[in-house]
């Protein structure tokens, strides 16, 4: 009986398996809109808290705007990480993922890419709006979006490592923060550096290239660390 069915099925290429993974994650995000809305709302609310606490002085707000946007986006990405592996760990799909004959490296990249689409892209799209509410000068807008486009995937990949290490623990939110926030420092430094340089009118392409290098490094190494950590966590 099994052999009959084998004939009906044909082998799938790696790309279509990655595509199927992205489709599944998109479907899940569509069914659980909180995965999209909550990080975004956290971002908006947390940025709103700054004028309420430091005052509405236009010069001061525009001076701190790049930092506020970047730090808040970074925290939003970190808080969104919980949905990356948690459900799969609890319902046993993580075991199936680790037992898939497909290379785990690419399956993990597909999952992380989906997470980035769901949790980070909306934040990046909304960032210029919030930046202008903080009176950030317009020269910084495009560099802000570019730096977030290059930086948030790195944050997601590093967060994935932290999440993979802590997914087996029942309450891991604060532990995750302690583990990965120090690792977020370079992205934050160069990300805000890009925006500051653009506002000051100096060249920022070199810093963008540094962010791109971090991105390349994270894409090539993080999935390895994540798969090692996941194998430990499901033990």
């Amino acid at each position, binding site marked *: 009986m099994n052999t009959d069915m084998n004939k*009906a*099925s044909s082998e799938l290429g790696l790309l279509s*398996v990655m595509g199927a993974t992205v489709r599944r994650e998109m479907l*899940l995000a569509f069914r659980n809109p909180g995965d999209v809305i909550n990080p975004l709302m956290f971002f908006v609310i947390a940025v709103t808290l700054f004028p309420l606490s430091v005052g509405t002085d236009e010069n001061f707000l525009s001076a701190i705007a790049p930092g506020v946007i970047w730090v808040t986006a970074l925290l939003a990405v970190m808080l969104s990480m919980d949905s990356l592996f948690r459900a799969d760990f*609890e319902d046993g799909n993580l*075991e199936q993922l680790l037992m*898939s004959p497909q290379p785990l490296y690419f399956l993990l990249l597909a999952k992380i890419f989906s997470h980035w689409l769901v949790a980070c892209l909306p934040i990046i799209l909304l960032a210029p709006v919030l930046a202008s509410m903080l009176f950030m000068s317009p020269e910084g807008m495009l560099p802000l979006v570019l730096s977030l486009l290059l930086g948030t995937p790195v944050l997601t990949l590093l967060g994935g490592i932290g999440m993979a290490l802590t997914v087996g623990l029942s309450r891991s939110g604060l532990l995750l923060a302690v583990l990965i926030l120090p690792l977020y420092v370079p992205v934050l430094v160069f990300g805000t550096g890009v925006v500051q340089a653009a506002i000051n009118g100096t060249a920022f392409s070199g810093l963008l290239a540094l962010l791109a290098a971090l991105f390349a490094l994270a894409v090539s190494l993080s999935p390895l660390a994540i798969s090692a950590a996941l194998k430990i966590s499901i033990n």
Partner: protein
Amino acid sequence: MLEVHGLYCERDERILFKDLSFSIAPGKALQIQGSNGSGKTTLLRILCGLNSDFSGEILWQEKPVKQVRSEFCSDVFYLGHAPAINRTLSPRENLRWFSASQGKTGNIDISTALDELGLAGYDDVPCFMMSAGQQRRVSLARMKLTSARLWVMDEPFTALDKRGVSEVEQLLSDFVNAGGSLILTTHHPLQIACDIDVINLDSRVQESAP
């Protein structure tokens, strides 16, 4: 097909098993017996490569599993304690992704698979609206979709009603009699009409770790 030589595993300073050797050939079933905490689940997870805290040798087609991991994974179907069913997705969506992750297209009729597990008409109902037994049946419907030659099943009859149990037993004996290999644990008195070996982990020497 699968050979195990001198398997040793300790957990929390207790030896679960040592010098455990066995093999399983096509058309055979192997039942792992033992009381709670005797290491049945650990053994199954070690065989599947989900647990690496062991020493000893596991051979697949006479080659170490680690060297042929990808082929091994496409030939093994693992059913664990957790159903591996996402509660937000419908049975159809769950099974479609399962097929894809195995590297197969969804050409196999998922509806037929669900029908055979007694879930006709439930294709598009979100799994969180189903009972535990029904979710188990969705999980078991993967048996109809996999082309694996070795099935490793941890308590496959959990949460099933009497009829479900005998249906699944029928599926299992069909699989083994068609040349498949089956390794399973169960506390339920098995009634499958095929060649079945038993390993009892309790009867093996228990002692504390050195």
